[in-house]
């Protein structure tokens, strides 16, 4: 077991930096309140109030350095990861041609009121993301970008219509966890329509991880900075795996 703690200037010193506002006017009493808050109420040590400023007549802004006594057992932290290797653009295409021998069909979009298409565009559209081509560019993929503000049924209908292998869902707005609500909603609708197992459901967005996607009922999740080739690699393996267990008709290559 290896318990670790934050590294400030020396191993295990536990130093962290905090910024917060208290709804009280700045002044010596506010400074002491902040110090006590971090020391007594939050349980830290060596509390140094680096800055106190009047953010307004009634709000004091603080920058604090303090040492936490908390530590964590790093060895015990487990996190599910998408462990497909990244085959790269040509690697993916080779696997599709060589092993799968048919197109992979995907539909992607953003449901609910969230109008951000940038995330799904980065994965699907030709130009891709950070120099990594989008799925549209892969000869082995047929990819449909349905955009944003999609109704769940519209989304599922299109997937059925084009015989999709996978549904790619992007969620960007996260206020009050609306992304989770929307993401879960789509899965529930799919279940209700008996479509949950027909498709690989993939969730992505700047505040998401594989772990959270699994918790929300998806098959995989991708977070900030995802490259399209990572998604393509996951998909090709997963579709091959599934086509081995349920050899279904797909659109020939």
């Amino acid at each position: 077991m290896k318990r670790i703690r934050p590294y400030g200037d020396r191993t295990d010193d536990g130093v962290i930096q905090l910024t917060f506002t208290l709804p009280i006017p700045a002044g010596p009493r506010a400074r002491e309140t902040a110090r006590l808050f971090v020391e007594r109420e939050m349980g830290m040590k060596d509390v140094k109030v680096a800055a106190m400023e009047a953010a307004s007549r009634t709000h004091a802004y603080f920058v604090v350095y303090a040492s936490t006594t908390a530590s964590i057992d790093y060895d015990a932290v487990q996190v599910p990861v998408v462990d497909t290797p990244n085959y790269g653009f040509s690697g993916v295409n080779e696997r599709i041609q060589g092993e799968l021998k048919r197109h992979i069909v995907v539909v992607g979009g953003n449901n609910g009121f969230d109008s951000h298409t940038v995330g799904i565009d980065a994965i699907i559209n030709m130009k891709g993301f950070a120099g990594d081509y989008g799925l549209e560019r892969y000869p082995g993929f047929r990819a449909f970008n349905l955009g944003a503000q999609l109704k769940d049924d519209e989304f599922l209908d299109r997937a059925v219509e084009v015989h999709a292998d996978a549904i790619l869902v992007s969620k960007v707005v996260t206020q009050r966890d609306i992304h989770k609500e929307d993401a879960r909603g789509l899965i529930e609708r799919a279940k209700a329509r008996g479509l949950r197992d027909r498709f690989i459901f993939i969730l992505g967005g700047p505040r998401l991880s594989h772990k959270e996607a699994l918790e929300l009922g998806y098959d995989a999740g991708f977070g900030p900075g995802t490259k399209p080739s990572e998604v393509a690699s996951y998909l090709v393996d997963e579709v091959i795996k599934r086509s081995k267990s349920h050899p279904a008709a797909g659109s020939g290559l």
Partner: protein
Amino acid sequence: MPTLPVDEAKVAECRQLAARIARQVQDYIDQHTTVAVERTVLRLLGIDGVGDHGAPLANLLVETLHKEGALGQGAAYWLGRCFRLGLDNPKALVSSLPRLLADGGKQLPPLTPAEDAALRADIQRMAVDAVEELSRRREKRDALRQKLGVGEDPQKYIIVATGNIYEDVEQARAAAQAGAQIIAVIRSTAQSLLDYVPHGATTEGFGGTYATQENFRIMREALDDESQRLGRYIQLTNYSSGLCMPEIAFMAAHERLDMLLNDSMYGILFRDINMRRTFIDQYFSRRIIAASRIIINTGEDNYLTTADAVDQGHTVLASQFINEALAHLAGCVDSQLGLGHAHEINPWVEDSWLMELAQAQLIRQVFPRHPLKFMPPTKHMTGDIFWSHVYDAMFNLATVTTKQTIQLVGVMTEAMHTPLLMDRYCALKSVNYISGAAKHLADEIQFTPGGRIEKRALQVLDHAHETLKHVDDVGLMDAIGEGVFADTKRRVDGGKGHEGVVVREKNYFNPFLDLLRPPPAP
């Protein structure tokens, strides 16, 4: 100010092209109206309040007219008819109208020309009063603004977005105390897709606060008070683009707002609102804006969130020419046109900041009298708030270096959440520092002739010119169909709100089309 050797003839040609592009759209606009325009007419004529289920009376009336195919004559006409029937209580109107219009309006026998003229004259009188009331409110606003002064350019514009108008007030006051000059209350997510304006004070929003007339009033009242305390006038802005563009313009005018986010294409490109609907709506909204001398902020900055800012920088400029031309057609003057642009080039590209300076300076020179709105980085901001804060600092410096007018204050938590109170404080402090420390930088530097900055600027102008030629060739609506702007394609008959577009009948009546006139120059 460092000056670029901009080819004035080319700029003039861009303006001519844009004028032609706009004229073509205007011809379409002039033959149509929309549910939103007609609701606005009713609101101008005093139809306020909501019905039993919270639906605004203006909506209930216009829906009925639309359903019955009567909207092409103008809601003003029908209001006149009802008045002549003695129906002058708006709630009663709502319940009677469906019956009156049923079966093609059999219960409403045709009017004699004299009766028709009298009806129009009555409404005309009311409309004159309404426009006078707007003028009075404009004057009241301008008087306070004049008295206290708004402070120096660049004007610091910052958003509040708690969802609760009362918390917004707290935060707006705090921001003003920290140096903000313009407060923008962000709307609740997806409000722009609602085909009605919610009513009353609201305390639950979603990444923003509902734009309602009462919320406008509450915020303006608080800012009037704060302005007096601080001895400087704090301006207020809100968002008009969307399915209720003209209605919100009316409410803003009525509640003495100073600015409005108002763009001829934003709704089309970023909210997938039908383009016909948007063009018609923007026109009427801008007629009100022109009369109330509200400053508009256009949305070209958004293009660079979906398109690459190096490759597509020129589309911002091209669109600004078009927004300008359309605004002129609605009576707006240059000093009202806060054309939007942005500092969105991938910051890790070599010399990215030189390209930012080039574009910002170019736009400054092409629109010298315009209160340009300069948007901070958003797309390349990350959760590393320390780095993001520095990135914003470079934007702050670009703003003073190129003498922008309205500076949207970038906030280090852009990639995370709408700003916390402390985020805003930090952001304003950075701006305050840089604006002072580099106050006269613009006067003290020149760009190297023939250098990288100059070349980039001239290239952007050339490309904008080519783009405008192309748009002029195919027409604006088809150009949007091709994805010329924001790398986003929209169909002429696609998108939300198309069903709300109506052809004006021969006898279409809307007294405000004549009455709303720009005020005399101040």
